[in-house]
């Protein structure tokens, strides 16, 4: 369902464009899970952003569910973000002006996929039932990330992209949150591509890719 071919991305540098991704090939089937590891600055986030339609590549192609993501315009990429992929970032995922309940329901409603029972169940299983009317800045980091996970999964995207979703949490909380995420993703049948530094977490995923200097190292 995801097919990335020869993906390239440059960032403007002082002495001309600096290559960050130098031809990435990768594919992911429905329901598959993939861990993406690599040193800081190796291009993991950039790759995720390109797949999620958050930024534009400079070369190569991304095919998602039969759609050529690189050919989409601003509105098309926005639609892709609404309906097909769900992105969880390391931090600051939440809309500060909305409370927990409305944050969780936001993407599902935006995608026209709102299912009240499923949302309630998600909130309960993520341990958020008591916090539904709190605002993001009243929550701890772990709670915030659980809201972000809930929000992504409430919309039932076909592909979940997570960029170090537990990178800002302590080891124990991070493991718990990630375990929860894995289980829920499995239940929705979505494919999962997650960036992580932890070997222990990577080991729990179906496959593992290592990024080095903008290339896949095997």
């Amino acid at each position, binding site marked *: 369902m995801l097919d990335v071919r020869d993906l390239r991305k440059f*960032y403007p540098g002082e002495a001309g464009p600096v290559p960050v991704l130098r031809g990435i090939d990768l594919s992911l089937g429905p329901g598959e899970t993939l861990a993406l590891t690599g040193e800081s600055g190796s291009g993991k*986030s950039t790759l995720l*952003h390109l797949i*999620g339609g*958050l*930024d*534009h590549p400079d070369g190569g192609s991304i095919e998602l569910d039969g759609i050529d993501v690189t050919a989409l315009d*601003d*509105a098309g990429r*926005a*639609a*892709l*973000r*609404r*309906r097909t992929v769900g*992105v969880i*970032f*390391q*931090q*600051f*995922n*939440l*809309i*500060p*002006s*909305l409370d927990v309940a*409305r944050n969780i*329901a*936001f*993407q599902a*409603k*935006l*995608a026209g996929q709102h299912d009240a029972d499923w949302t309630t169940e998600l909130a309960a299983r993520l341990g958020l039932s008591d916090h539904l009317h709190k*605002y993001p*800045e*009243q929550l701890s980091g772990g709670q915030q990330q659980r809201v972000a996970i809930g*929000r992504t999964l409430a919309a039932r995207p076909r592909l979940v992209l997570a*960029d170090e979703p537990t990178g800002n949490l302590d080891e124990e909380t991070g493991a718990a949150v990630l375990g929860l995420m894995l289980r829920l993703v499995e239940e929705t049948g979505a494919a999962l591509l997650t960036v992580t530094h932890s070997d222990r977490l990577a080991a729990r995923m179906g496959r593992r890719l290592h990024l080095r200097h903008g290339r896949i190292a095997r």
Partner: protein
Amino acid sequence: MIGAALGALLSHWTRRPFQLLTLVIGLATATALWSGVQAINAQARQSYADAANRLGEADLPVIEARGGGDLAQARFIALRRAGWQVAPIIEGQLASGDTAILLIGIDPLSMPPGRLPGGAGFGAEPGAGLDADFLAPPGVLLTGPETASQLEGALPVPVRAAEGMAEGRAYADIGIAQRLLNRPGRIDRMLVTGPGSLGAPSLERIAPDLAQRRPSGEDDALGRLTDSFHLNLTAFGLLAFAVGLFIVRGAIGLAFEQRRPVFRTLRALGVSRNALLGLLAAELAALALVSGAAGMGLGYLLAGLLLPDVAATLRGLYGAQVEGALSIRPAWWLAGLAIALAGTALAAAGSFWQVARLPLLAPAQPRAWALASRKLLRGQQLAALALAAAAIALALWGSGLIAGFALLGAALLAAALLLPSILQGALALGARTARGVVQDWFWADTRQQVPGLSLALMALLLALSANIGVGTMVSSFRLTFTGWLDQRLAAELYVTAPDAETAARMREYLAPRTGAILPIVQAEARIDGQPGAIYGVADHATYRRNWPLLGSVPGVWDRIAAGGSVLINEQLSRRAGLVPGDKIDLPGGRFNIAGIYSDYGNPAPQVMMGLTRFESEFPEVPQLRFALRVPPEAAADLARALRAQFGLGDDAVVDQAAVKALSLAIFERTFTVTAALNVLTLSVAGLAILTSLLTLGTMRLPQLAPVWSLGLTRARLARLELTRAILLAAITFLAAVPTGLLLAWVLLSIINVEAFGWRLPMHVFPGDWLRLGVLSLLAAALASLWPSIRIARTPPSDLLKVFANER
């Protein structure tokens, strides 16, 4: 280390240039409007002082009739003979066509040389330079160049422009002035020009009916009236300054808030609390001085631009003289910079207090915005309530102009402080209408923006309220005034004969050609201790039907015709607390007050008495002016025929329409100045919104990035941003309408009465509000256009940084 700390603090401004711009613009415009108004006021006051001092009345004692009224010239001669050093003065309005001047008759021989009006005709050497033309018939009128050209050929006496003479007033030898004013052998008062000879009998002995008045320092009536005009201007200057301070407060508050981590780091690195506060104070003082100096420059320009209108207004309304050119005193510069510093200090006080109490370590629990803003709202509501109570108390028990302005200030500030609550309430209501998740977010996000924008919106509220309030006052004034003119100027033609003989021939000529010939006669008199006028009025339907009476006893016109009763004008009624049925002492006896009439455009007390009684009280006043009733379509022809028949100038025959146009023109100019200040204040408020939005722009990204990542395009976010600004401006405008009406009420019913002696009925003009509403929405749209475009153009990588970076 101090240098390094200062560098760390100042780097904030280079990274946030819009915040710096906001601060500078806010402070500079505030200073500009304030100091501009002050410059105008100072210039005008200086001119009054010069004018008043020309005859030395500000510092010489004056002798006048105890009960008011004028004096026979023989009294002056008697005092002179008794050894008193006195100089006679007669004063009166001299109307010629469409100009009215204050004619002052003096006796150059008894005036001390240094007190004589300067310029041509009077030599530099005391006493020696008296021009023979001035004394010998036909005499000469000395006045300013502008007035001289207006009077050219309109008077039987030559008019000469003299360098350095004030416009709008003319000096003549007392004999000539008496003739021109139709008051032969009369004087108004005497100046005591010297100590008098030894053994001169006391005033009580030789003239018990005369009283000596100590030097007043200023001409009372003029001082009072112009004072109120300047107080009006000052109030507007203050309002504009307040609008500017709201902006400054917003910028400083934000700059301090955003630098909190820097403050903490500096403290942690060993900068003491006092050193930190000192650095911040120095930084703000420097900014205040730079912006203040820029504001002074702007204020000077502003004053220069407005001064001609102010001068024309003061001349038209009060006959006061103001030089058209601006001179600047060093004290003005110092005061302007001081007010810039004081304003900055006021605006920064809260932020300093917070820094002083800043804990070294960040609190573990970040304050929730919802909670914090609720707390802030509560505080603002309490303050608004207290101010509203103060305003009500002032409205009920206050008196005087100052109390009126205090009421105005309290009410406006209360409305401003209440605005965030009104906005939150309105937005909460709006949120209920939300359809779909994007609208839901829109309302919630808009509510979250209110604290950051509230100071700019308060400034907008003040500007809009001032606009509505002053606009309502002006329009009410205009409407009432035109209606009043229609009543007052009921006759079709007004003619003035050059002398009694022509007047008699004219009446003969007119008798078969008109429906009625109504004489207009007037005598100057002191009424209730102030210079005023008594008019004689014919018993005719023209008055019975049209005269604008505010209150009267039954059968009022019959009583006037009978002679024992008079009408008084509104300003006299209010000032002296007289109502129909009361009695009033006038030259000629004690009269019953049968009614009160409205008399706009004239600050002086006036009385109308029956023509027959007037003729017997003031037999020396010739009947030279007449109001003529003719069919309106015949008026123009008759006017032409009259001019031809009697060789009259254009100004001697005036039709109703021309008088109305002239009177209205004077009033239009009166408000040019306030209108200009209104526009300026509104622009400043628009600027405040722009700079606030730009400043908030950097803080917007973390709020917008999540929504964008979930599938809203940047273009849509930008459109919503534009809508948000317009929505907030619309709510603010709706709140400004009642606030503005309140302002208008205070202006019309309290301040006007205190300042001018009239109460004007309030008329509302929803059409004007609509225009202003559209204007304010446009201003908001314009102000948010650029910030919105910036959002639409934000590169995705900037939005993505939100999720990666530590904030």
